[in-house]
């Protein structure tokens, strides 16, 4: 079965072709980061306008790259939520009607399920069941994944998401949007231990997170060291970024270990934009090895939004017999654990 996958839930237009026999055949991505940079965040109307312009050229490109003709496509999958309503509508309207024209099934995919399954695209995929840490701009959640579509929430952030915390720290350090990768890069040059930030909620039982206190600690450190230009010197900025990243990563690692212990599972999957973070990957690798558990993650480009994860998740749901009616349904809000198990 060969599936064309479309992702337009936010500020990336992603298109991919996945084949259940041959794996991922091609994927292309257009990021609108430059478009939104001057606003310091995603502007929904501009994002939607850009998706309508970019989707078709990207489809032509991915079809050519994968040597796929319309007759080779067995289904079209598109992100139908959660995300920005207007942006979701573009991909869903286009994808649903293209499936109609090609007379193939259409499959609406949950964006976070896409993220969750992205590590399945790698050579050494994890096996069900496992614990998943979803860490992105909008999510910090620990999920018990029993099987495809069967998800139980174990814990989540009670305030900011981890990616959001990274983005806010970036702003305090005057780094460009989106700040997560920039904070991580700056942190590499930082001196370990010069600053020590709190690890919120780690000494309390449970699997919830809180990152808003860390925000305050970061801001206090920035203000206490600022020079005439309103910022600490370059090395101090790096040291603060280092301390910030260490605190987030430590917190995530502690909770992941705890979730594995509680569920008795030995497999952890990390997904979403923050799962691209090098220190998070390295620390999980070494810490989980100590308890005989293993961590799985997607290649860097499949940690943030992309079409490949949508094509993959869509293909799994197609194989399980799911498809959409002619009505196009978009869900800006959509609980992951309300999905049907397959």
């Amino acid at each position, binding site marked *: 079965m060969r599936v064309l996958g479309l992702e337009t839930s936010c500020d990336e237009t992603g298109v991919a072709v996945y084949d259940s026999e041959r794996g991922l055949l091609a994927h292309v991505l257009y990021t609108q980061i430059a478009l939104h940079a001057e606003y310091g965040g995603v502007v929904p109307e501009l994002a939607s306008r850009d998706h309508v312009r970019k989707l*078709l050229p990207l489809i032509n490109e991915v079809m050519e790259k994968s040597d796929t003709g319309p007759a080779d496509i067995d289904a079209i999958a598109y992100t139908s939520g959660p995300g920005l309503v207007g942006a979701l509508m573009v991909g869903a309207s*286009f994808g649903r009607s293209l499936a109609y024209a090609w007379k193939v099934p259409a499959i609406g995919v949950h964006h976070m399920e896409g993220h969750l399954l992205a590590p399945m695209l790698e050579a050494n995929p994890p096996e069900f069941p496992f614990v998943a840490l979803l860490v992105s701009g909008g999510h910090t959640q620990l999920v018990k994944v029993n099987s495809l579509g069967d998800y139980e929430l174990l814990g989540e952030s009670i305030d900011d998401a981890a990616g959001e915390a990274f983005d806010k720290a970036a702003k305090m350090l005057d780094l460009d949007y989106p700040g997560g990768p920039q904070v991580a890069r700056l942190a590499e040059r930082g001196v370990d231990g010069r600053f020590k930030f709190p690890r919120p909620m780690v000494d309390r039982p449970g699997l919830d997170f809180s990152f808003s206190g860390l925000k305050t600690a970061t801001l206090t450190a920035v203000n206490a060291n600022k020079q005439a230009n309103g910022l600490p010197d370059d090395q101090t900025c790096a040291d603060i970024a280092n301390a910030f990243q260490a605190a987030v990563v430590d917190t995530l690692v502690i909770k992941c270990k705890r979730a594995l212990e509680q569920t008795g599972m030995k497999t952890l999957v990390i997904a979403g934009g923050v799962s691209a973070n090098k220190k998070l990957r390295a620390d999980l690798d070494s810490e989980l090895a100590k308890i005989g558990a293993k961590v799985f993650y997607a290649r860097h480009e499949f940690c943030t939004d992309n079409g490949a994860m949508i094509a993959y998740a869509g293909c799994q749901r197609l194989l399980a017999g799911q498809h959409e009616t002619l009505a196009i349904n978009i869900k800006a809000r959509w609980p992951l654990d309300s999905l049907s198990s397959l």
Partner: protein
Amino acid sequence: MSLILALDTSTDACSVALNADGVITSLFEVAAKSHTQRLLPMVDELLKAKGCELTDLDAIAFGRGPGSFTGLRICAGIVQGLAFGASLPVIPVSTLEAMALGFYRANPDIHLPLAVALDARMNEVYWGLCARSGELVEPLVAEQVISPDVVVASTEVARLHGDFIGIGPGWHYPAMQTLATVNKVLNVHPHAENMALIAAKLFAEGKVVSALEAQPVYLRDSVSWQKRQRIRDSNDFLV
């Protein structure tokens, strides 16, 4: 000779029409907030009723705007998908011209020019002037998004000496009332039927574009865009 399917979701109305050599059939619903749910089923219903397949069509027309941004994008997205999928050319049609044609068809004795206004919110209207042209309409000015005050002061309007009829919901603005106290009809909406009629002429003239060029005409291209920082939040898991 042509077979053209037209789609429109530029306002709260949702409509599809088929123009088979001048014979029009259509479906029309007021479906505010449910365009995505209704448009494709309506296309399917109309095609099936006429015993046609997408591939029998010569072209697909759509209401390219101005109108509701989201509505325009739903329509453009669906049209792109259908046209790309069935390898058909696309014919973008002005919603304001389609409204004017609809009014003329409903009022065969009226020959005055029409001043068409859709509410663009933020105290502005999408604005156009149209006249009869044979069986169809022709625009007298370039479409714009402007405030009612600018409409009132415009030389194009002054030149008509009050000999026009104002049509469309944009005429609700009090400033516009001073222009046309009697000759105005607010309850005029875009309808795919009129797009299908206009499109047949454009098709005959070769005025078609590719699926990729099936893009909305927003008219409003710069406002202080509102940014939104949090896209998906944890509530997506547990509501």
